[in-house]
């Protein structure tokens, strides 16, 4: 809380997100989706719906990757025999 009170926007890093860094994926994927869809859609009809769908796709993809990597690290790697 003290870190948030001492925060000066645009000047100081927002240290509150050190522990919650993964939440920052949401605005990142939203921003990327806006730019990508604005560039790629031939007609900009139903633009925000398309942006929402792509944002969800990115977030779900990242969660799936995280699950896959953690399964690999915690399940597959311990099964590999240790070299003598």
């Amino acid at each position, binding site marked *: 809380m003290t870190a948030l009170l*001492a925060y000066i*926007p*645009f*000047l*100081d*890093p*927002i*240290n509150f*997100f*050190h522990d919650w*860094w993964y939440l*920052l994926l949401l*605005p*990142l994927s*939203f*921003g*990327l*989706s*806006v*730019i*990508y*869809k*604005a*560039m790629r859609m*031939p*007609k*900009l009809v139903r*633009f925000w719906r398309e942006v929402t769908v792509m944002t969800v796709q990115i977030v779900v993809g990242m969660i799936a990757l995280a699950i896959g990597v953690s399964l690999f690290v915690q399940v597959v790697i311990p099964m590999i025999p240790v070299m003598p």
Partner: protein
Amino acid sequence: MAASRPNRPERIFSPSAAIFAWLWPGLGYITLGERRRGFLVMFGLLFLFVCGLLIGGLDCVDKKNDKLWFLAQGFCGPIAFVADFANQKIVQTVPMDFTPSAAGQANRARYEQGDPEMLRQLGRVGLGRVNNIGTLYIALAGLMNLVVILDVLYYTPRPGPERRRSEVKR
């Protein structure tokens, strides 16, 4: 066989639009007559840029210490250079040299004596995940703007009511 191929719209080489796209995000499309597309790209790029600065502070854009990242961030246009200039003038005023050299030892002594100016400036230097993610936001904004610049450089007219064909030079 060849008759079944649909007619593809002709590409337009427009270096001036590419320069405008680098000068300010979205301006390339606006100069080509695609106002809505331009404003949407502008919104997305400035959203990523501003969020990056809010998360990581000014230290996210650092040409001196993060040269490779700045290669990508520089594609955001002059705003990235302005942010770097502000970073060098406001945040990076304290030397970060703490090596065993004479200058490094002097800095260490200042730090250990609790020099308030040095402690205040050190607090503004982004570290850890927050700095990484802020830097990543702005670098991705720059790389997306590079794609936008290439798209307007070799511009393919899109069908749609928002584009005024008369404004596009052929």
